[in-house]
């Protein structure tokens, strides 16, 4: 089977944010995602979802890359919130459709919109940040070299853990293991989890050796990247926008006749 293009080439990077300081990019994401988290009305969240999608378009991230990932990430969430319209008790005089309450539908829609917007903003702001960039972010946050290494290695270890887990699950299946509601299944899951941790620890040790050989006696310190006025402008604008959204969502607006 031919490999999909998105597997062989990383998605294109956001042309506006590509040159920005990694910490500024993280600040943009955190500010906007926090703002979206505070948005109270469905209409506002729908607009934010649309803006998130437009940001993905502007970032030139191919739909073939983000669509399957969004479906994988949001699919489970959609399944979780699907019963909400029927489980929420309608208010008196509240309209219903097919037995579903309007307030429940509204709540479910809000959850999905918030999740989608956060994902889209995350991809737009953070895709393409390299290990060196993450270390720069940690250095800016005064987290220290060892914490920076830990943050980065945890990201890498998640990949390692998932890879090890896939291999072992396949090996267990090939030996005839089937998940069922019995004690044997729990034993197999316990074995897989335990063995996964052991294998990951062994691999993490080898990766640590590889890392120390690469950094040599420099201690693995990457030179700090200096903030320029554009980085500061981007960060301040994003912070102001996020605060504005939070302030607007907390203000009781009164429309004058």
């Amino acid at each position, binding site marked *: 089977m031919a490999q999909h293009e998105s597997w062989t*080439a*990383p998605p294109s990077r956001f042309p506006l944010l590509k040159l920005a300081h990694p910490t500024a990019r993280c600040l943009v994401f955190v500010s906007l995602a926090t703002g979206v988290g505070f948005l109270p009305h469905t209409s506002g969240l729908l607009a934010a979802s649309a803006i998130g999608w437009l940001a993905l378009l502007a970032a030139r991230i191919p739909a073939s890359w983000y669509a399957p990932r969004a479906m994988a990430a949001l699919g489970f969430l959609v399944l979780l919130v699907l019963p909400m319209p029927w489980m929420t008790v309608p208010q008196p005089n509240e309209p219903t459709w097919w037995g579903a309450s309007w307030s429940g539908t509204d709540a479910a829609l809000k959850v999905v919109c918030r999740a989608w917007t956060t994902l889209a903003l995350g991809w737009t702001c953070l895709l393409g940040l390299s*290990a060196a960039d993450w270390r720069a972010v940690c250095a800016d946050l005064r987290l220290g070299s060892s914490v920076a290494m830990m943050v980065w290695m945890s990201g890498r270890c998640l990949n390692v853990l998932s890879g090890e887990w896939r291999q072992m699950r396949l090996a267990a299946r090939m030996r005839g293991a089937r998940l069922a509601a019995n004690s044997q299944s729990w034993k197999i899951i316990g074995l897989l989890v335990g063995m996964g941790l052991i294998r990951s620890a062994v691999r993490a040790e080898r990766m640590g050796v590889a890392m120390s*050989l690469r950094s*040599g*006696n420099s201690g693995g310190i990457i030179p700090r990247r200096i903030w320029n006025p554009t980085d500061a402008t981007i960060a301040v604008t994003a912070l102001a926008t996020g605060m504005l959204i939070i302030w607007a969502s907390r203000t009781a607006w009164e429309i004058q006749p």
Partner: protein
Amino acid sequence: MIDLDGIDVKLADGTVAIQGLSWHVPPGTRVGLVGPNGAGKTSLLMTLCGVLPPSAGRGIVAGCNLGDAKERKALRGSIGLLFQDPDDQLLEASVEDDVRLGPLLRGHSETEARDIAKASMARLGIGEWGQRIPQRLSLGEKKRVALAGVLALNPCLLLLDEPTAGLDPRGRRDLIALIGSLQTTLVLATHDLELVLDLCPTVALIDNGTVISHGTSAEVLGNPQLMFDHGLEVPWPLRGNSAGA
């Protein structure tokens, strides 16, 4: 380049991996390191690059004393190690970022690191792979990228742990050509005895954590009794010689 005199190495669990090992490798040579599974090849490589400290004996590698913790740490800056499993050392999201990481960690600026990475990738014929994802490459391609990452640091001693393990004949041929073109001092730990014959004029046979025999490749690998006693076989190209011997 390597001067070991009766070194012992104990692993964290107390196992003695290397016992009374003495070995001398002059600079600029290519040496094969062969032995059965569990003989101590990988432990010896880890000792040579300063990761495992010797518990006894005297060892000098690239001018650094293995008995001194500070010198061992400094030694890591001048040694390149290609792991058996390239997934252990491919850490970044794209090939170029991965090759660039070492120079960046050594204190080069972004631009310098990028130039070094590009030169190293071009040297290995992977200049076009900059934006590819390392985890999606084939094993042979991953080994090539890992080697580019190692060579970007310009090591004075290159240690290769089973470089041809798991490679198809073409991948193996390509890697042999690549390794053959390197001018640095090289230690090649492998079970691929034909590879040792092709690339290394001298070889050391190691078993139970000590060097059993050291000499020219034809001499050591062509000794059927020696090879049999230590769980190895005379490689095909030398079988005629050993039969006649």
